[in-house]
């Protein structure tokens, strides 16, 4: 009995309730999903084992390929635009002494709004009747009168823009936190050496916040895989699958076409993709990367 009152066990007592909930909410459904991907289950009724048929079908599915490509584009877009803007703004904010809190709050504010609200704001802004579309049409700028959410060529980027607008403030805050940890003496030394603002950023700030930066890159790559809500609300993956992403496609297969087996196969694919990313970051850490 003594073993249970051991100090090392105390942490386990605290972790166990959460682990237990995770087992039921995530663990068992995930395992069930792994099993269902080998069946033709339609969400109701009998379950038939069909081997790897769903996976064979996956490789022939042109819309899944489109969704995967869109996810890759999405990831690249998020790794560049919000990260670039957030880094710049966070760095600039470190130089602001008065009113910095206002900017931090202003940048972070969209992150606090529910995705449905963010989506409705932008949907109405771009609406062809109520939004800017109507205004541009009245002044004769017809090329701007059409909602970018409804054009095949722009829908994915428009959705990514809205999600990025909501997300980048979060990045600003975590980068800013990292930047405040940097020893001020380094900047003072650089000033004495006559370094420019950019040089200080490139050679002091960026290397010093590397753990935070790499962490942000990792969460962006992982969060880009199950991206769903903004696509679902703004475009539903359309028009013509132009903004379709894997999670939305998986949802459509399960809840519109009732093809739960196939949907589980897509989920399994996503699971292994995320596992590979996590494993890669684990390898980097083992290789001595400070992440």
């Amino acid at each position, binding site marked *: 009995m003594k073993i249970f009152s051991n100090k090392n066990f105390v942490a386990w007592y605290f972790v166990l309730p959460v682990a237990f909930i995770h087992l039921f909410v995530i663990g068992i459904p995930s395992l069930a999903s792994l099993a269902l991907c080998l069946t033709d289950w*339609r969400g*109701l*009724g009998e379950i038939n084992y069909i081997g790897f048929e769903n996976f064979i079908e996956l490789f022939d599915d042109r819309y899944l390929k489109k969704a995967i490509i869109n996810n890759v584009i999405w990831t690249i877009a998020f790794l560049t635009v919000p990260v670039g803007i957030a880094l710049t703004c966070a760095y600039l904010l470190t130089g602001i002494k008065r009113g910095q809190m206002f900017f931090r709050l202003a940048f972070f504010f969209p992150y606090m709004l529910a995705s449905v609200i963010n989506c409705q704001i932008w949907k109405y802004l771009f609406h*062809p009747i109520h939004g800017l579309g109507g205004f541009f049409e009245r002044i004769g700028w017809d090329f701007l009168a059409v909602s970018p959410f409804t054009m095949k060529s722009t829908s994915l980027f428009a959705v990514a823009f809205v999600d990025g607008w909501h997300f980048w403030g979060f990045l600003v805050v975590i980068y800013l936190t990292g930047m405040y940890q940097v020893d001020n003496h380094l900047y003072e030394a650089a000033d004495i050496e006559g370094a420019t603002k950019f040089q200080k950023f490139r050679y002091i700030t960026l290397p010093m916040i590397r753990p935070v930066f790499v962490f942000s890159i990792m969460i962006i790559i992982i969060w880009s895989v199950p991206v769903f809500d903004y696509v679902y609300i703004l475009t539903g993956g359309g028009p*013509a*699958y132009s903004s379709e992403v894997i999670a939305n496609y998986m949802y459509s297969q399960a809840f519109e076409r*009732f093809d739960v087996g196939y949907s589980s196969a897509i989920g399994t694919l996503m699971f292994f993709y995320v596992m590979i990313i996590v494993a890669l970051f684990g390898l980097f850490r083992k290789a001595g990367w400070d992440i």
Partner: protein
Amino acid sequence: MIRTIISFASVIILSTSFSALAKTKVTWSMESNADRDPIMIEKLQNAYNNSQDNHELVIEFEDNETRLTSMRTAMIGGMGPDIVETPGPSYVKEYHAAGMLENLDSYAAEFGWKDKMIPWAYSSGVFEGSLYAIPKTHESMVMLYNKTLFEENNWKVPTTLEELEDVAGKIKAKGMNVFSYGSDGWQPTHEHLVGIYLNNYAGPQAVYEAIIGEREWTDPVFVEALELLKKHMVDEGYWSGSLENYYAIGWDDFHAQFANRGAAMMTIGTWTFQATQLGIGASDDEWGWAPLPSLSSQSPDPNFMIAIGTTMSVNANGKNKDGAIDVLNWIMSNKDKVLDIAKDFQFGEMVVPLTLSSSDIPTDIAPQVQDYLSEYARITGEGNYGYCTWTFWPADPGVHIWKDMEVVWAGDISVEDFLYDHQKMWDKARKNGDTLPVPLRN
């Protein structure tokens, strides 16, 4: 004296409580709608509860998408509401195949439900020879038009493709959109248009043959039908001015567009009658309706596409099956009460397909709706009816017909390729026994 009053009051309270306790609860999970819910409570739930002492109907309203998912999960777990409401036969098929619905044959025979219902609507709930669902509402597609505007401009309501394209040119020349319609908020809106072009170009007979497997969907007549739809949608921008605007405009917007002369006509289902009456009906303009125009010589006569909007079934694992049956029988046996509910929605909802005579049609509804109800009965009675996709298409091709239509409109695949894929899905559905009941055609 006080003691007598207290005793009397106690007896009343106790008897009321016992009567409430004696009632067994019947649950019904119903699609929520802010305008409709109070009426359903008053004229369905309360009316039923006041009509008898055995059961207490409790309607639980919920957003339809959430409701369908939660009901499905509950039913997988052997629970769920006593009365199972679904958006159509493809859902009934799934529940039936899983053995989750009660066979209603004996009740239908005992209470004479078959004789009380329109034959095609009754057969839509028959799976493997037995009745499993009763339509809660049936509907069709119509063409609404701004009557005042048409009269002012001496425009003729189109009945053929030539007339449609002619009047469309005139409407556009006036700076208006031809049809008000859009898919924002409900992507399956596309299937309304696909159904119209399949039935009114290829003709209901050809559609029927394809549904029962005697004709391929790759038949040139279907290719031509969808090519025409693509031309009208993409090249001509008949709906809300352009494909992009059609995608961007939702229910409130297209009703407003129709009401304020942004568009001269609207292709829509009869579920819109209440909203139309509240929209353009409240303006200075008068609205009219017409059957959808014939789009080719293969479909020369006016027809109405038949469809089931919502179905009612009894949960095989429900706690109160007797109560659920009693509620359904109350609906089937109280035509006047059901018509009174439908009247409040201008026959856009709760249109249970009971056989009606002309004297049954209420006179205190919009005259256009009265007129429609008579014409619908006459024309479908003559056998001129087509098929709505959401009632007669199995789940997979049923999603394909609207979701992948966008790919055709985007020009990513040809109509031929689209229909080739569509045929493959029908073949698979037929092989798996997933096809839905379709009434025999005369």
